[in-house]
């Protein structure tokens, strides 16, 4: 078997005396959607933020395509083509879609100024593909609907050729129609060989979208399961009681 796209080995992170992430090891293959589940405070967001460079790990290794990666800030992560889609944090509300899409990676004219026209043109192109109804290119994103905002965030990841995508509850604030749109997008990205970590609370959605799921509980990995082999109740059991079903691979946090 080829090396996984991403391997997080023995990741650890503490805040004060609390172990937010405690010896967690998980992996992700190309074209795979892997769920990261758990209660609030289980450590899933912290784990993903260490991969995206938003947080510095205390210990552990990140391996990408079989090579150890040095990620200590968001820019490093971007160099490894890791893109993150946050539900609430990612957009500057006062800027328009193009400015947000290119934030931190602005296109520059020969004179060294930001090339707003070119950025808008590129944004129009990518939005035509992702969300053809999107027209409000001159509105600050604060004025957009949840789905439109999310499509800007997703466009950002797609535009910069993400190989590894971290989605933190991408549909939490969306309606039914918009959730379906995001689900279709995930399928599309998957078929292009992108590996996706999906943080989600919605077991039903995890069943639908993910190939495998990792469950965290109080910072420890309860286990990893293939979602086809287990029931929704099995997964709930992992999240709530920390019991790994016999079909899954138990982690250090699994209770007997």
């Amino acid at each position: 078997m080829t090396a996984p796209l991403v391997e997080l080995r023995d990741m650890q992170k503490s805040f004060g005396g609390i172990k937010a992430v405690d010896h967690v090891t998980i992996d992700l293959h190309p074209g795979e959607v892997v769920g990261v589940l758990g209660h609030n405070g289980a450590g899933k967001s912290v784990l993903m933020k260490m991969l995206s460079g938003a947080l510095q790990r205390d210990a552990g290794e990140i391996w990408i395509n079989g090579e150890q990666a040095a990620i200590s800030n968001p820019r490093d992560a971007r160099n490894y083509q890791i893109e993150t889609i946050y539900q609430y944090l990612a957009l500057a509300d006062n800027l328009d879609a193009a400015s947000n899409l290119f934030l931190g990676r602005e296109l520059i004219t020969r004179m060294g100024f930001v090339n707003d026209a070119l950025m808008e043109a590129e944004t129009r192109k990518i939005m035509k593909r992702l969300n053809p109804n999107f027209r409000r290119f001159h509105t600050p994103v604060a004025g957009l609907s949840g789905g439109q905002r999310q499509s800007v965030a997703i466009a950002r990841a797609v535009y910069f050729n993400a190989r590894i995508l971290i989605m933190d509850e991408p549909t939490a604030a969306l309606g039914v129609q918009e959730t379906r749109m995001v689900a279709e997008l995930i399928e599309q990205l998957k078929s292009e060989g992108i590996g996706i970590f999906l943080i989600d609370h919605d077991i039903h959605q995890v069943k639908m979208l993910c190939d495998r799921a990792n469950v965290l509980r109080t910072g420890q990995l309860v286990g990893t399961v293939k979602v086809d082999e287990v029931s929704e109740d099995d997964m709930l059991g992992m999240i709530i009681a920390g019991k790994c079903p016999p079909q899954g691979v138990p982690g250090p946090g699994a209770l007997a």
Partner: protein
Amino acid sequence: MTDTSPAASAPAKPRNFFAALEVDTRLIGMIGAFVIICLIFNFLTDGRFMTPRNIFNLTIQTASVAIMATGMVFVIVTRHIDLSVGALLATCSAVMAMIQTLVMPDWLGLGLDHPATMPVAIIVGMATGAAIGAFQGWLVGYLTIPAFIVTLGGYLVWRNVAWHLTSGQTIGPLDSNFQLFGGINGTLGESWSWIFAVFAIIGSVYALWQSRRTKVKHEFPVKPIWAEMVLGAIIAVTIVGFVAILNTYEIPVRRLQRIYEARGEVLPEGVTQGYGLPISVLLLIVIAIAMTIIARRTRLGRYIFATGGNPEAAVLAGINTRLLTVKVFALMGLLCAISAIVASSRQTFHSNDIGTLDELRVIAAAVIGGTALSGGMGTIYGAILGALIMQSLQSGMAMVGVDAPYQNMVVGSVLVVAVLIDIIYRRRTGDKV
């Protein structure tokens, strides 16, 4: 998701005249308020308010506060505040005054009014301002002390550093070349003012044309051509009108005689000469353009607004917001130094109380100009208009004969009401930037 954008759907049939021009309605509102203030005072003073002389004075009185207000926009946009600008101005002014009256003439033995004095004083003053600003920015950005506290401390520290440097004395007269930045002592004269006007018009028209060309190139919707022409015409008329008024304010004959005598000539009979554009106002215009370009056309400006809109998103986008804070405060400090040049040369000496209460005027100007204290929102032209509106109120009331305490009551109330109007406006338009 069936929304349409006005720009995309209706370029051909705009809703109204202003929509077609695509001019910020808030800008129109502010200009409207300013015009109303001018008309009222002009009525109350029997036409004395809108004389060339008073308009000239208004512009040079506004320059110092307006220059700092452009920097305060960036500070407030990044969700900080700077209470130390008046004190910082005093320190920079003291440093520059010392260089002009002590360091250059005595220590270096160059005598008074040496040609090198002015540039050296300005460079050292600007370096001082930028360094102090950067230091305060470092305290805010890296040591995470709230800007309110850092600059409240700075307010006390720098005002008294200025006092210490000068032993509390008034220092003057300043270098005669340096005094050119003071307003009435340094103007372009009629011909150069007209040359400036020509270049300003060419520059504005070129900017309009360039912007349209870029849009056409990318096949974006553009405004109707008549709207572009109206806009260009408004700008041209404004520039010409402004310069014409300043040129109409004539240099008194006595003064003109002295100027001619200094050149070894005799003033010919019947010759008059207008003041034209003050160098301090030219400085303000250049700074306004530079700051607007920074705000809209550079990464620095983009990051300033992004950080103000959502600091967490900015960090996640890889923006070094700590260093950004240092840069914003350093820029503020630099502008304080430039204001110090204008303010001290206007009074021709450095005094202990220079820049007193300027921090409040500067913050008020930025806020009246539509800068939101919650961050992420503000414009350079708004801040300058805010400064102009405040100065007009103050000068106008002084001319009408309103006592100073009442003047302050009015200005204070205007500040609060202006923010209220802005809040109501934003609610109506749905948080438009």
